[in-house]
């Protein structure tokens, strides 16, 4: 409990400092709207806190030395002594950083398993699976269970685990919604999984964070989080109004360029399946129950080269 208390205090202190610095608008990363982003923000603030202690220590030592041992403050005949070193000083010099690094490593390892798993508090919900694939310079979002597909925008339900399956039709891109949680790469030869969740309804910025050529700067998408009911209504509406996605249409969409927001029924996964290369992780749509347990071993560890 005590540790948590410190964290909360640090969190609020640095949150205030940084928001004031940034002109009272909370910085996106430090304004989390979901459990994954929250964990990341608290890690960031905790590390800023500990690191400031180190910075203060170094700064004050430096100022002390420079003020006290300036040549102008000493007798002209003062001869600095020859000092080789001291075992105890060196033990402290190594020991304290080792303790700090060990503590941060402990936190870091814990967080790794948290952000790679189903979001905390949403373990019991059935995740919404979205295949997010990028092409130059667009995002294609396929909702296989709902049987719909969007381009450059994402509607998601709140209070439900989200499971993004990321891959690319071209260069490596990185799928990032700062307020919901950190990014992960989308690559042409494998599918990566990113677990997110949104606690509150709202509009969030999403983008490709990995440089992918000429149209990279505009490679963004809008994320709208809404209640499950509204989300269901939207799905129903799409099914009634949107046109189906055809192979020909999809080929057109893949052409390099920028597009506005578009909506289709059906998904391109049916005729253009995601990569099943050497590093491909299991299809989660078939075995959603086991997915959250195997996630942390995705990728290279489980790949049978």
């Amino acid at each position, binding site marked *: 409990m005590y540790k948590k208390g410190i964290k909360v205090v640090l969190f609020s202190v640095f949150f205030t400092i940084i928001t004031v610095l940034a002109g009272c608008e909370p910085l996106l990363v430090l304004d989390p709207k979901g459990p994954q982003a929250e964990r990341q923000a608290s890690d960031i603030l905790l590390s800023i806190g500990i690191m400031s202690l180190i910075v203060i220590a170094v700064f004050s030592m430096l100022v002390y030395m420079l003020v006290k041992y300036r040549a102008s403050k000493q007798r002209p005949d003062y001869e600095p002594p020859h000092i080789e070193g001291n075992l105890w*000083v060196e033990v402290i010099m190594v020991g304290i950083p080792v303790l700090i690094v060990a503590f941060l490593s402990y936190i870091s390892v814990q967080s790794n398993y948290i952000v790679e798993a189903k979001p905390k508090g949403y373990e019991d919900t059935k995740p919404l699976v979205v295949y997010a694939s990028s092409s130059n310079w667009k995002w294609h979002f396929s909702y296989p269970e709902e049987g719909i597909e969007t381009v450059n925008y994402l509607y998601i339900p709140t209070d439900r685990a989200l499971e993004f399956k*990321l891959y690319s039709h071209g260069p490596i891109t990185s799928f990032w919604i700062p307020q919901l949680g950190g990014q992960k790469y989308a690559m042409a030869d494998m599918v990566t999984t990113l677990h997110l969740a949104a606690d509150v309804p709202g509009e969030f910025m999403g983008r490709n964070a990995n440089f992918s050529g000429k149209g990279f700067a505009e490679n963004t998408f809008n994320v709208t989080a809404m209640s499950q009911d509204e989300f269901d209504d939207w799905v129903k509406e799409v099914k009634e109004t949107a046109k189906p996605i055809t192979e020909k249409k999809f080929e057109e969409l893949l052409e390099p360029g920028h597009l506005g927001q578009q909506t289709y029924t059906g998904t391109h996964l049916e005729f253009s399946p995601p990569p099943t290369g050497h590093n491909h992780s299991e299809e989660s749509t078939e075995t959603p129950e086991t997915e959250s347990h195997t996630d942390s071993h995705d990728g290279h560890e489980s790949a049978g080269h």
Partner: protein
Amino acid sequence: MDFFNRFAVPHPSIAIYASMAAIGLTLIAVIAGLTYFKKWGYLWREWLTTVDHKRIGIMYLLSALLMLFRGGVDAIMMRAQLAVPENTLLDAQHYNEIFTTHGIVMILFMAMPFIMFFMNFVVPLQIGARDVAFPRLNALSFWLFFMGAMLFNISFVVGGSPDAGWTSYFPLAGNEFSESVGTNYYMIAIQIAGIGTLMTGINFITTILKMRAPGMTLMKMPMFTWSALIANVIIVFAFPVLAVLLAMGTLDRQFGTNFFTMDNGGMDMLWANIFWVWGHPEVYILILPAFGIYSEIISTFARRNLYGYTSMVGSMVIISLLSFLVWAHHFFTMGQGALTNSIFSITTMAIAVPTGVKIFNWLLTLRKGKIVFTTPMLYSMLFIPLFTLGGVTGVMLAMSAADYQYHNTMFLVAHFHNVIIPGVVYAMLAGLHYYWPKMFGFMLNERIGKWTAWLMSIGFILAFMPMYISGLDGQARRMYTYSESAGFGPMNMVSFVGAAIMAISFVLIVYNIYYSTRYESRDISNDPWDARTLEWSTHTPVPEYNFAILPDVRSNEALWDAKKNGHVLFKGEYEKIHMPNNSGIPFIMSCIFFVWGFSFIFSLWIPVVVTTLGIFGCMALRSFEQDHGRYISVKEIEETETNLRGA
């Protein structure tokens, strides 16, 4: 017509035409100047064919300064473009080329030659040697580096620049998404320069291990030499990786192999993995010699021996080992899972420990000292707090779960500039001011020097601190523009102002060189800083043979011993000195390499074959050559020594 189209710039702009004109005019001016002043012979005899490590060092220095301005102009253009939202100063393509070349130029063609300059100029003097182990190889190293750099630089005006980022990740850098020859330039120019660097690595390991003065055991080497030794060991392990990587990339681009393609079994992330297996150690190749320079300067101007010599050496060895074990932290977000990320997160954070040891050792070196604020010392004292900031943000980035939020953002850009500028660039400038009198026989002006250091630091803080904030606000790196509503505007404007102030400080350095050349006194001693190591026991200017008599060393501060403890450094009589002959072959061979590289980039196979034969021809020529060097007679040494003492 198609043939000529390949050489045209695919995306010309006024800036590019202007640089074409500038390059042309400079070339004409140089040629005309050399002819008018009849300096061709001098240039050839004294510089192009030289095998003297000091001259090669100075040529490295000139190239580094030239490239510093080349990369600096890129930086200013980028900051100007981003200063306001939806700016149209540059378009996306031009911006992509600029940040790509800024990265390459600054890391490989500015920072690398700068440390090569220090290693070449300082190491042999500091270990009491007359030359490097392989003087002619050393000349070849320099000329290969130089030709690589020049080849890379003409990409802006012939055929098109690389535009896939300095990391050049595939498949973006593959033929499908980068059609122009730009990325070919990347592969070939870096390859040629990299071969030069690898040879330097071998050369200096041999020099340091085999050519130390009598009495200088490994643990009596000055700290800069130690740092150079370790950096060169890293070079020898890391640069072959780069060579193989670039060869694979070249094969993919020009011969249709599928190492990194999206289909036919290619793995795009393989490039990223191998790139960073070289790329991360590369960072330490730059920073360790910088640490060495700081150690020399801080102990000189604190008037004290370096605190914790042994732990300084130990920490560098540990850093060099760890530097090879952290590469995956450059792509925590690749989806390699929590276990792999955890391992690399811990190894990365571990580097903070030996680095911290060094910082604390420097602070404790100041303790009980008698600190004199010269320009080199001012840079070093500004380095400590600024670098500490960069170091701690490095620890923050090492926490992989949090890195999911920092990755590819301006936060990262802020971090690595915060490490490289105070860490490497400040060290280079501190060292430049420190060694200037030894090189040229006069000091750089102290007042202008201090102004520069302060101005640069103010500019630096303004330019890079806002990036931490805009990164946390969601600004990705490498975006050529952003919308007004994103809210990144004010921070980027501050950055631009900071960058402009930094630019002024770099111009001040040039002014300082000009001013000091004209007005500073030539009447300085051999040891103007009252320094502690052997390089300051030589005459100024340093004679060709460095030491008339090889010094006898008893501690890592040999000159200090001589000054304070009455130790006699130079014992014995003059003897004739064996020196290597100058040779034109390194320069000629590198010129052939240049043509080879250019032809390869444009897939002109006939010239490639011809020049390949030429390169092997040069090697064959060397292997049949009878050249045992020459001797400098005792009489000649006596004359030189008397003249220098009189001067």
